[in-house]
């Protein structure tokens, strides 16, 4: 049974705020989903070790130095920048 406290704790870990008025609905939704997920614990089989899909191995490439992205280009999507840096306003 998922409780309000669980939802608040999970939201904190997820870096999300759940407003007071949405807490009941989110708790119910989470509880329903966890009950649904719980059906795997009724499985009689333990399953088999799984570490990657299709037995793929990593496709490595040579570690070559190549030109990187332009700083101005990278900064162009930020809300706040200052002298070539991402800016987060100081609030004390």
């Amino acid at each position: 049974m998922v409780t309000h406290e669980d939802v608040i704790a999970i939201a904190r870990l997820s870096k999300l705020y759940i407003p007071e008025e949405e807490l009941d609905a989110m708790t119910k939704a989470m509880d329903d989903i966890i009950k649904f997920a719980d059906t795997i614990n009724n499985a009689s089989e333990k399953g088999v070790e799984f570490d990657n899909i299709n037995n793929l191995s990593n496709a490595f490439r040579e570690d070559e130095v190549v030109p990187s992205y332009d700083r101005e280009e990278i900064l162009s999507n930020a809300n706040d920048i200052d002298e070539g840096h991402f800016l987060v306003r100081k609030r004390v």
Partner: protein
Amino acid sequence: MESKIRHYSDMLKNREITCTELTEKFLSGIDTSNKDLNAYVTVTADTAIEAAKKVDEKLSRGEELSLLEGIPMTLKDNISTKGIETTCCSKILEGYKPIYNATVWEALQAQGAVLLGKTNMDEFAMGSSSETSYFGGAANPHNINHVAGGSSGGVASAVGGNIAVYGLGSDTGGSIRQPVSFCGIVGLKPTYGAVSRFGLIAYASSFDQIGPITTTVEDSAIVYDAISGYDKMDSTSQGRKGAPTVDTLKNDIKGMKIGIAREYLEGVRDEVRACIEKACEVYKSLGAEIVYFNLPALKYALPVYYILACAEASSNLGRYDGIRYGYRTDAYKDVNEMICKTRSEGFGDEVKRRIMLGTYVLSAGYYDAYYKKAQNLRGSIVNAFKNAFKTCDVILAPTVPMTAFEKGNAISDPIETYLTDICTVPVNIAGLPGVSIPCGFGENGLPIGMQLIGNTFCESTILNAAWQYENAVGSEVFKSSEYGIKL
């Protein structure tokens, strides 16, 4: 069915139309139809015309065109396009313009593709109706009161509505196959590793694959051949196995063993089951053999998928903090509050639910009971499919248990909506290729789809089986909607 790509390519090569005129016709089709379909969230008219003019210049110099050159197409809004807004249909990425291209878009651009715009989707590809989109859902071109499906609903609506010749979608748990089933067209989810994911905005990295959405099987093969192969930018991408799929499409399928797993037929609507049975008859008439078997591991596929995909999503979506790109909240006291408020205001409800579920199953105390257990059951499902392919060449199954939902019905109950993914998620869990093609119509006149599932890197086998079926049933089943451009 005639390949649309070849049809338009021939028109260009025979000078029946210029590429600029063709592109303008599609852009005017978007102008007219997008009000109803809401398929496109960004239209790139200027760059499309610019690309078309280059093709015309090439033609006027007497140079040869490649097959995809000058063909107007679209990309799902989670595929990165340099300098063109790529939002994943989320408020949190509103205004975001990538500084690099996805490898698949580089590949198509190199072949002269003309991008008409970016298409609608469920926010971060999380949904089955495209209604979790920040921009509202895409409509079904066969009946606009019904959804196009999801999450690649915009591409399916645009291609099914004839306002793009083809498009690329992404499939994490059925997001290519489900909307094409709803819209009566063709969608291929390739083997995991067959197509580069570089530049695809991640939802669940061990499930995501990019694939083509088209109106014919031949077009699916043409586009798959153009985008598949090893990419040094994606360490999970593999070199393509075998010859181009387009070369073996028309091979005889006499003696091909087509498997039916009984579990796939449980819980699907009668009209869907009837279409699958009818398709079996078509295959028998083509000389294929139908083999029935059980796949009991499928019982746990849905919870396994939702546990693992949400766990991966909770990690992948940790990067959205409002600092380097995308939406940032206005009022905050400290950095932690800025990040939490940015995320809470920027993500929609379904995305928040999946991040929360993913965080829950990865948290101390629950990791073994959910995440670890689900990973082990994933191993069982992979093995079950491996065994199945010892007795058959392809597996035939419904794509979705029903036809397209009415608008507004899909998002009221999350669990009910998750259940509709029952037939599509096993393919992603096992990393297999699957192609969905039309196989009939429901009582409400909406399309029904079926999928052909193959062993890893057996795209050529499933496309061969799909082409033979398409060739046998023709336009009565592969029926175009009334919308859009037909030249």
